[in-house]
């Protein structure tokens, strides 16, 4: 056989093996016996629900708060671990799993409530820009987490792994809590969506129209904080920040209604969560962590969305210009006639 033919058949063989591998890996992760199915389901839950909450943060122009809150939640979990260690309890071991989840969730919610309260007070008293306050909160929370991680205050370094999120280590119990929390958030968000949207776009009107604006504002913050705390404890603060912001950015140039924005952001988040998990599983040699693969896919989605939006804008402008030229020519022709 000539050399070129032999090389061609070898390449063809490798291509077939590659395709089989791609399909086999897909089948493996879709199989109910997949050993990391909890991680996959947790990723999908985060991908579908976190962007719904993120829509409110993006439209409310509170993007910096979207990065400050997960960091605040992480500090809350870190302080919980520290408090446990000071009391002689290793909260990260299996025997204390239920207790740790509950206490860490409370710690995260408390810290986020403090962050929101601080931001609101500073904004009201000193009229400081909310973004500046949020950025300050992020810096302080991040420094607190770093200091705690580097110090020897927590007896076991391994306990701090929970701070960066361990999506590969989602237990059955964790998954149940995550699912319960995320489903509750989705139901409440969809149930109160009209009031929450009104609060988002015209808070002044809400306050003057005797609507329970303060209650709604509290519920909105609670939804955001619960989602971030639950997601952050499984996937880590950076991953949650990405899922809060990027899916909304993908949809913003195209969405013409809130329903489209909600559904689209959730769908994009879900697809990228699955795609990222699959890519991470498929590309073993690259060793890309699940969260990084998911965020990279979301980044690609934003890029494609921007390119499409630009192309659509150019086409629309061209069409308008052509219509205008045709209109002008028609007018001139009529005048000439």
């Amino acid at each position, binding site marked *: 056989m000539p050399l070129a033919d032999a090389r061609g058949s070898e390449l063809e063989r490798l291509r077939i093996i590659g395709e089989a591998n791609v399909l086999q890996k897909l089948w493996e992760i879709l199989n109910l016996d997949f050993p990391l199915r909890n991680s996959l389901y947790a990723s999908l839950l985060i991908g579908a629900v976190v962007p719904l909450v993120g829509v409110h943060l993006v439209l409310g122009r509170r993007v910096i708060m979207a990065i400050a809150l997960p960091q605040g939640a992480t500090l809350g979990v870190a302080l919980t671990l520290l408090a446990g260690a000071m009391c002689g309890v290793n909260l990260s071991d299996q025997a204390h799993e239920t207790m740790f989840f509950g206490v860490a969730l409370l710690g995260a919610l408390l810290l986020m409530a403090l962050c929101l309260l601080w931001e609101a007070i500073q904004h009201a008293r000193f009229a400081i820009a909310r973004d500046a306050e949020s950025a300050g909160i992020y810096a302080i929370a991040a420094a607190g987490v770093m200091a705690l991680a580097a110090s020897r205050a927590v007896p076991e370094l391994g306990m701090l792994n929970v701070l960066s999120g361990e999506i590969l*280590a989602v*237990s059955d119990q964790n998954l149940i809590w995550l699912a319960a929390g995320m489903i509750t958030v989705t139901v409440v968000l969809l149930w109160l969506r009209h009031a929450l949207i009104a609060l988002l776009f015209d808070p002044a009107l809400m306050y003057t129209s005797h609507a329970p604006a303060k209650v709604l504002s509290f519920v909105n913050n609670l939804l955001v904080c619960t989602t971030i705390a639950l997601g952050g404890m499984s996937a880590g603060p950076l991953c949650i920040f990405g899922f809060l912001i990027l899916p909304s950015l993908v949809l913003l140039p195209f969405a013409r209604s809130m329903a489209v924005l909600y559904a689209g952001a959730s769908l994009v988040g879900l697809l990228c969560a699955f795609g990222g998990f699959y890519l991470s599983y498929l590309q073993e040699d690259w*060793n890309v962590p699940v969260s990084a693969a998911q965020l990279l896919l979301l980044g690609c989605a934003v890029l494609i969305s921007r390119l499409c939006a630009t192309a659509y804008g150019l086409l629309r402008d061209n069409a308008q210009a052509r219509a205008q030229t045709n209109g002008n020519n028609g007018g001139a022709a009529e005048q000439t006639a």
Partner: protein
Amino acid sequence: MKATTLLLPLILALTMLPPNAGASEKSGKKLMVIASIPDFADMAREIGGAHVTVESMANGTEDVHAVAVRPSLAAKLARADVLIEMGLENEHAWLPALVEVCSNQKIRSGRQGDIIASEGVVPKDVPTNVGRSQGEQHPAGNPHVNLGPDMGRLMAQNIAKGLTANAPEYKADFEANLAKYLEKLDVKEKEWREAAAKLKGVKFVSHHPDMAYFADFLGLEEVGTVEPKPGIPPSSSHTAALIEEMKTQGVKVIVREPQYSEKLANEIASKTGAKVVKLTVMVGGVPEAKTWIDMIDYNIQAMLEAIKG
């Protein structure tokens, strides 16, 4: 007269003192020994006795390859007469930088004050293919010599030799202390060998490839590690493959070191029916491991408990 004027001569006098003046005045002619890990600090105390003041840079719960570099560590090194390190590039990520900035010529690499505890060991797992793609490799071989129960003798002898070279006036005391320590080790090693018979052939998985010398002594069989490559965090595909491999090979023990995730180890254990056992990689990693002998005792006992079922 202003307070600053009064304090100025004192400050000048203090700054003109040689770096070790304060230490030697306080502790007589004691050797100031800084150990990279608490294991060597323990051995230096045993051998140096009353002639040494010993401090450890890492504590038992830290990652020995990634100890946080703090200014206080550089200050400790600046005062040191002797530095004891593992060698085999065990501390390569943090110690050379600290030795560089502390400006203490006595403990620079290759000088008399720099004691390599693993000198003379036949290293395990020497890589044949070195590259970034292979993870955080140690080109000279697996550096976790301190976990080998039969390595105590060699490390103690190296430390005694180094201390003697730095303080020859205490040679007789160092030799006597070493002899006593080796006697203790002989007794313990016999016990450990008896325990090894029960552990022979037990298959296990650890998070990091740090159990090579420990496993070799006890006849354990390491099936894999949670890390795909040394220092590389576990990926989804590797974790899934490891779970399958553990099921196929019937691995019943997962070794978890205190610096690595407990949650992931527990999750893998729940999928495979294996038991998670915490082994410490340094003295002080668990409250029971107060000395090097205690640490080996604890690790072997923990393994024996794990296979009881």
